[in-house]
């Protein structure tokens, strides 16, 4: 009887010991890698922010999303150039063909789209995946977009050339840009020349 109890105790002991040792090893590994991983994430975010709003030197994350922001908006950053507000960068996650398209849209203080970066997506490789390419993102009709000038696909009555065979992916990006513009608008209420209601209406259409 005592032998059986002893045997069972051994089972539990060995398993506990192995689990404890591995927990300890992982704690040490985590201690060394965690700061580096955090740093890399921060760097990646900063690089993307700088790309979207080239004029700004440092960025501050808005703690809470503005009221009335579109459902795809996930984060908002304010950009500063020598302590002068330089614009905002909005992180949006519109749904594309294969899933969420996570992207950042920078809007300069003058109300123009300053830069767009697609951070991650799961669109079809070779078709929808072209939303990350300059051929699509850098086209005139998107670069010219801004407050009061919401970009829209040709199919939807605008001027933006959609990627061939990837209208849904293209439309997702445009929807993201327009939601970002709507957020920017709520910050630059004093921006000149903004019949912003139009942007609002256009955005509604894009969302079906």
């Amino acid at each position: 009887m005592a032998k059986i109890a002893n045997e069972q105790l051994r089972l539990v002991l060995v398993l506990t010991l192995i689990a404890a040792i591995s927990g300890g090893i992982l704690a040490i590994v985590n201690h060394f890698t965690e700061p580096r991983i955090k740093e890399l994430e921060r760097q990646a975010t900063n690089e993307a922010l700088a790309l979207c709003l080239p004029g700004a030197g440092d960025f501050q994350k808005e703690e809470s999303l503005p009221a009335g922001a579109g459902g795809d908006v996930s984060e908002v950053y304010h950009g500063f150039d020598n302590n002068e507000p330089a614009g905002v960068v909005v992180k949006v996650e519109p749904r594309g063909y294969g899933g969420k398209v996570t992207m950042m849209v920078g809007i300069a203080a003058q109300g123009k789209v300053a830069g767009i970066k697609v951070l991650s997506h799961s669109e079809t490789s070779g078709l929808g995946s072209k939303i990350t390419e300059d051929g699509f993102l850098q086209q005139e009709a998107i670069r010219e977009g801004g407050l009061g000038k919401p970009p829209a696909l040709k199919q939807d009555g605008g001027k933006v050339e959609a990627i061939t065979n990837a209208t849904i992916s293209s439309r997702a990006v445009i929807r993201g840009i327009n939601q970002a513009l709507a957020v920017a608008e709520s910050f630059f209420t004093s921006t000149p020349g903004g019949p912003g209601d139009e942007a609002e209406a256009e955005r509604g259409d894009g969302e079906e």
Partner: protein
Amino acid sequence: MTDLLLISFGAIFINNFVLARFLGICPFLGVSKKLETAVGMGLAVTFVMTMASAITYGVYKLLVLFDLEYLDTITFILVIAVLVQFVEMILRKYSPGLYQALGIYLPLITTNCAVLGVAIINIDPSEGYSFIQATVNGFSGGVGFTLAIILFAGLRERLEFAPLPKAMEGFPIALILAGLISIAFLGFSGFRLQALLGL
């Protein structure tokens, strides 16, 4: 409610765990020679995936509370192993009929990557699932697995009578068949459920 419907539809058809995400390929290829066993495996996997989703979601919240997120993989796999053992014991004691039907598949499920996979997907910050959403995702993932393995087993049963070159027998033709089913499932990826629901 619509979010649950979207998650469910996505996990079953658009991002089917087996045919689009490549999770649970081992049992998919291994236990699909007969329709009957495929159904059994599918049901067992669905059951465990649903339970595992609910439990690992809670366990992860606990890990976050104690700042131990880095132990997630090791904890999840142990929780799943214990869960599978536990389910086996309960079934044997209280439902011998069900145990007879599912029992032999249960030990195989611990190392089914669809189960650990769904647990990890559920805690992905970019998905941001709630407890209910995670559980629905687990259940639907299981249903998607069952659907895929049943379709596959049905085709494989017929394949037994097809004359094949020797080199193609077994896994090679099974993989090609899986590829063809996967092409069929690609059709769902353009499906606009939101539009259909009038959203």
